[in-house]
């Protein structure tokens, strides 16, 4: 029997697994895509394109890191996309129309995001609503709420260089006339922090345990409800952060938009190895997964493919990623 266990252990540790499993494959895909686009389009090989990819990746990355937590509890959070727009509208409204200082508007966006997270968490963990349904409801609610609060006008956060526009340089600063994508540094730091939270704190440990086997975790005396709610609060918090990055990069935030953002974030997380059936996932993988989507989005127009191809190809990549997840689980159960 001892023999037997060592054998199965050996089987599960292939070269790829030792290098980080799906994460590693996805990282290879990111590199391959990058090389592919560089080879095919001279214009893609520019620093400015690189900047654009980063610019448009921040809000998806932040949403994806957040939504990874509900996903890892075997749930989902569909409210992050419309939520992002809602939080951004509210923050921008308070700054432009109510005269709040920028930092207070930022804080308001994040707090609002966390509040919706608490609502989601309570619906799922306390009232036993299926996560899909609960967050679909809050998705609709945030979509309408943002429009109502700001009176249905597009909101522009303070522009760079104007009073209160300092927050735009959180993500990009100019040095000697060069744009430095400093936002990516923050993303790296956040990824490191959240990787640590996932692997070295109770929050992460119980998030994964709930996703693997909620009942066994509960019967171990863990306050399952609290940690289940907390996963959604993390998701809301990051949707709030994403709202800030979105407001900083794009000129006008339009009420009624945002539906569909969550799918890119969820897609990125899943491509990066977060299991939709819960219990497994990584933050670094999520980052890589998001970049697969962002590279496709930015790169395909550069090689002259009609825009809609991007959606088809992203869908196909997603199918591949989910298949990998399913095959892996089948192998584990065998």
């Amino acid at each position, binding site marked *: 029997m001892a023999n037997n266990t060592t054998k199965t*252990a050996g089987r599960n540790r292939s070269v790829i697994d030792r290098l980080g499993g799906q994460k590693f494959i996805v990282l290879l895909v990111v590199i391959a895509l990058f090389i592919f686009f560089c080879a095919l389009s001279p214009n893609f090989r520019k620093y400015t394109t690189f900047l654009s990819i980063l610019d448009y990746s921040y809000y998806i990355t932040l949403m994806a890191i957040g939504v990874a937590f509900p996903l890892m509890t075997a749930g989902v959070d569909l409210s992050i996309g419309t939520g992002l727009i809602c939080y951004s509208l509210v923050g921008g409204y308070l700054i432009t129309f109510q005269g709040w200082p920028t930092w207070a508007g930022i804080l308001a966006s994040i707090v609002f995001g966390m509040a919706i997270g608490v609502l989601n968490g309570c619906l799922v963990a306390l009232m036993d609503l299926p996560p899909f349904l609960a967050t679909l409801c809050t998705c609709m609610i945030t979509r309408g709420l943002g429009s109502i609060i700001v009176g249905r006008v597009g909101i522009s956060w303070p522009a760079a260089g104007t009073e209160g526009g300092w927050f735009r340089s959180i993500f990009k600063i100019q040095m000697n006339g060069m744009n430095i994508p400093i936002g990516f540094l923050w993303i790296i730091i956040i990824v490191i922090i959240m990787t640590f939270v996932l692997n070295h704190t109770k929050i992460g440990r119980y998030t994964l345990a709930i996703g693997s086997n909620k009942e066994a975790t*509960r*019967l171990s005396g863990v306050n399952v409800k609290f940690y289940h709610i907390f996963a959604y609060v993390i998701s809301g918090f990051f949707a709030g952060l994403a709202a800030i990055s979105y407001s900083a990069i794009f000129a006008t935030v339009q009420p009624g938009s945002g539906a569909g953002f969550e799918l890119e974030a969820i897609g990125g997380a899943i491509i990066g190895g977060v299991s939709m059936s819960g*219990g*497994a996932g990584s933050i670094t993988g999520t980052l890589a997964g998001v970049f697969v989507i962002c590279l496709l989005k930015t790169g395909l127009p550069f090689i002259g493919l009609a825009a809609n191809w991007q959606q088809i190809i992203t869908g196909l990549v997603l199918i591949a990623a989910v298949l990998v997840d399913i095959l892996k689980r089948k192998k584990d159960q065998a």
Partner: protein
Amino acid sequence: MGEVILTMKDIDKSFPGVHALDHVDLEVRKGEVLALMGENGAGKSTLMKVLTGIYKKDSGTITYEGKEVEFANTKEAQDAGIVIVHQELNMLGHLTVAQNIFIGREFKKGIRIDDKKMNDEARKLFQRLNIDIDPRETMSRLTVGKQQMCEIAKAISHDAKVIVFDEPSAALTETEIQELFKIIRDLREKNMGIVYISHRMDEIKVITDRVTVMRDGTYVGTLITKDSTKDDIINMMVGRVIYEDPKTQSMVPKDAPVVLKVENLNAGKMVQDVSFELHKGEILGFSGLMGAGRTETARALFGADPIDSGNIYINGSKVTINNPQDAVKNGIGYLSEDRKRYGIVVQKTVAENTTMATLENYMSGIFIDKKKEKEVAEKYVESLATKTPDVDQLVVNLSGGNQQKVVIAKWLTRDCDILIFDEPTRGIDVGAKSEIYKLMNKLAADGKAIIMISSEMTEILRMSDRIVVMCEGRKTGELDISEATQENIMNLATREIE
């Protein structure tokens, strides 16, 4: 009593590590009700699954209506006229009665489903059975008893010649059971062969003509019901050689303090007025047949299911247990019968599972101290002799016995004084079993109090200092090990409730 319609002879079936059926015989005659009896795990269900083609037999013959047959699946068996009415109802709640009865073989009118014809046919069926059910009623709105009638109607609609009832009365009320018996007698009149699987001795006496008894996968014998007594049947059911010596006397000192006292515990239908005491250093066995309410009692005690009423005292003081967190705080640990669902998180490592209940002890600040976690996991791997290459191994890769040891380790890190072992050796091979037994004895000797729920009579007699016997949600008796025998335990476990 009519001619033989079905004969199973020398049926043999092995699963990896288990000889489930050892040359079993069974004979069903037209116009009779045959009881199939035996303890949990005696092989009744396996035998029926072999009959209907769910399992393939290793050897032996099945003769049906004079011809040798072997069904590839239940559909073939059904078409030939052999149907099982299952204990769990396989009904689709949102569909109507008629739609359920004819599912998979709907009447068609062109490409449309002919609901009218299905309703008419169902009505005819119910008339034949003298049952009053509207075929257009939605299934989920019927009582469990009525749903069972529909299962029977469905079975008969297949032109059944042999009907197997697998513990049909488990979920029924007394009046519903009487109705069921009426139908069964009716079917007997119509010259069908009926196999009736049940644990309820009184029912057996009322409804059956012959009794076939199985034990440990073997055929023990067949009795004519009216010529035999309850004791005859019980003797046949338990009359097995016990290879391992039973405990002869309690190892608990007379003056051992009571650590847990349960008074009039009520929780749902399956736990009614249960009271008992548990002493320091004692192993209290909970015996009874499947569905006796033992696991439910344990779960209520542990806060996994809500308690309706009753008092729980730990070390003399009254405690409130609303959820597992409360139970754990009060020093109760629960090892579930269904390890994979309730006991361990299989996709996590040995170390992670070990510290699941005590993570706060391995924190430095807000961070988990993985080194400390690993140390404690390694300590228990060593002291419990868990076989794993290292503590970073996923639990899913361990064998059943070693998984169980991980669960035990989880509760030992918590330093629980009261441990509930629910079927501690289920799915564990023989060698590992005795290791678990040794471990439990050592824990008791160290002063832990243990509740052990087991469906294995040998296990109960070998391990327990005292035995609580339950039947249908109630405690029917309490025996000291010195006075316990298989017979008197089985007597209590099958006691009729007045």
